[in-house]
């Protein structure tokens, strides 16, 4: 059981960004993708989630054997894909509690109503893990949230929706060390043999708190190097200069 990306090519407004990307994330594993700006990391996360600004020109993405590229964004989410956004949207007028509730309701069979009491109990317990104040339930989704609050809110949604595969797009950006530790705590609490993670990050720092099984380097729309967690340390020390020097050792 895994999320398998095969020879994925994708463009935005005719400009190719992903150029034959291959990656397999089995359940139970945490994979990290690192790479310089503009290498296509965020595009990869958007393409997997189904953002319609991106056109997939060839390749496949299968979730436990099932092709998802033809499916709509909401359907992919219900199938078990979760993307924690780098820049989560603000949704004025919709309370956080109602938003998460609607997302859970969308997963129930038609005619079945979510148990409100159990829902709030669950929500509050997850918020406690993330050290989020209860007032965030009544506030409009991400509206006026600080950068750190938005990221915590992403992790809260991830914990509530119980996805099969989680993609975290630069969740560490804009976080101070305390917030980073709390976010890592949420992610680590969700580590399970039943769940795979893809963590996109610029910095090794996050990986001190969320220990990856595999680290990949992305450059110009492809995975150009893969290794274990020591690769992240190596990158931290030497940077991405090796990419220019042509010392490419493909995975």
């Amino acid at each position: 059981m895994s999320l398998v990306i095969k020879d994925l090519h994708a463009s935005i407004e005719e400009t190719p960004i992903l150029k034959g990307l291959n990656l397999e994330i089995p359940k139970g594993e945490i994979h990290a993708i690192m790479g310089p700006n503009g290498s296509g990391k965020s595009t990869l996360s958007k393409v997997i989630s189904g953002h319609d600004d991106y056109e997939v020109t060839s390749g496949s993405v299968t979730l436990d054997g099932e092709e998802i590229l033809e499916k709509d964004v909401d359907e992919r989410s219900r199938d078990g894909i979760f993307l924690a956004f780098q820049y989560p949207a603000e949704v004025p007028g919709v309370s956080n509690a109602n938003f998460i509730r609607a997302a859970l309701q969308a997963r129930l069979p038609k005619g079945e109503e979510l148990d409100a009491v159990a829902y709030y109990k669950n929500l509050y317990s997850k918020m406690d893990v993330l050290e989020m104040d209860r007032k965030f339930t009544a506030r409009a989704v991400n509206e006026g949230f600080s950068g750190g609050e938005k990221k915590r809110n992403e992790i809260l949604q991830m914990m509530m929706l119980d996805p099969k595969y989680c993609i975290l797009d630069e969740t560490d950006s804009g976080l101070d060390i305390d917030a980073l530790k709390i976010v890592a705590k949420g992610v680590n609490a969700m580590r399970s043999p039943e769940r795979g993670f893809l963590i996109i990050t610029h910095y090794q720092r996050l990986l001190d708190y969320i220990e990856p099984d595999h680290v990949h380097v992305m450059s110009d729309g492809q995975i150009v190097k893969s290794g274990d967690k020591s690769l992240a340390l190596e990158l931290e020390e030497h940077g991405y200069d090796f990419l220019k020097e042509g010392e490419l050792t493909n995975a």
Partner: protein
Amino acid sequence: MAQSSILESTPETPTQFPTWFSEQQQQAWADFQSLPMPSRGDEVWRFGNLKQLDFSEFTEKETSDIHFQIPSLPDGVICLPLEDALQSHSDLVQEHFMKSETRLGSAKFTALHKAKVKSGLFVYVPDGVKVADPIEVSHVLSGAHQTIFPHTLIVTGKNAEVSVIDRFSSANEDDAGLCIAVNDLIAGDGSKLTYCTIQELNTSSRMIQVNVTNVGRDAHATAFITNTGAQWARNESVSMMTGEGAHSDMLSCSIPSGTQQYDQRTYQHHASPHTNSDLLYKNTLYDTSKTVFSGLILVDEGAHYTDAYQTCRNLLMEDTTEANSMPGLEINADQVKCSHGSTSASISDEEIYYLCARGIPPQQARRLIANGFSTEVVERLRNEKLEEIVLQAIERKFALV
């Protein structure tokens, strides 16, 4: 015998009504006949649809269909059908009945209302008395081209408190009806008066509603308008802050769809110092619907330390909708805080994508956002029971679009 048009039939005031009332009806009929029809050049009808004002096909409905749901009332509170109050409390009704001129364009039609009105609600809450639960009134329109002229008159004494909700609906989906309603709200010193309307007529019907609120010293009045029905609805709302320290909330939530048109005109009149008013009108437009909002804040000379706010927000659910906003203010005093503004926006693709990325289907995501947009103004009612009733009406509409 074929009934004649409301434009031609002279009023027949029931004989049991007081003389002053029948005289006023005769006078109003004369006024109606002499007042000009609104025309293209009238500023208060700018962007308005004058074609909707042809009422020649309409006849007067013989009997009114009004249902009252009256909570338990403390001693001294008068809550009666207007026709009963005219007989039992003639002086009290006369003191307050339609005392203000109609300023926002429908003078001719308020004269028609005055000439023809036979039914409605009269509420009087004496000094210091508080009515806990809302008084609910339901007006049902039935029969082809039938017209009703419901009147709501609410008077609160010093430090009294009351809330009233008027609901307008149609007996069936087809009959084109006409409702010309007038509400007079007189909030006595230190009182709290909350009035709420829900207009859910069928989409063949038309509605004119003229609301005049008079707010006394340190009193707090709230007038809330909900529009989800009718082919065309025109709301004219005036709030006059006559007493020092008066506060007025003017709120509206409208959700037009199909070819529905809502035309709303407002007037926040600050006649005394230290008064404040806060207006928030929200429209959520679907299909090829159209709205007009025109608001004026007037701060009289001497009405210093006035705070006045006026906001109209339009959520455009389709790019085929049309929302016209004309905010305005005129300030003749010092130490005044005023703001006015209007916005029109559609839901951004990024918002929809975000909600969809959590598994919410796009249609539902749009509804969730639209619902949240409306809920924001409903919560300003700050009255749980009324909020619940209005939110149910909004839900009924969202289920259809």
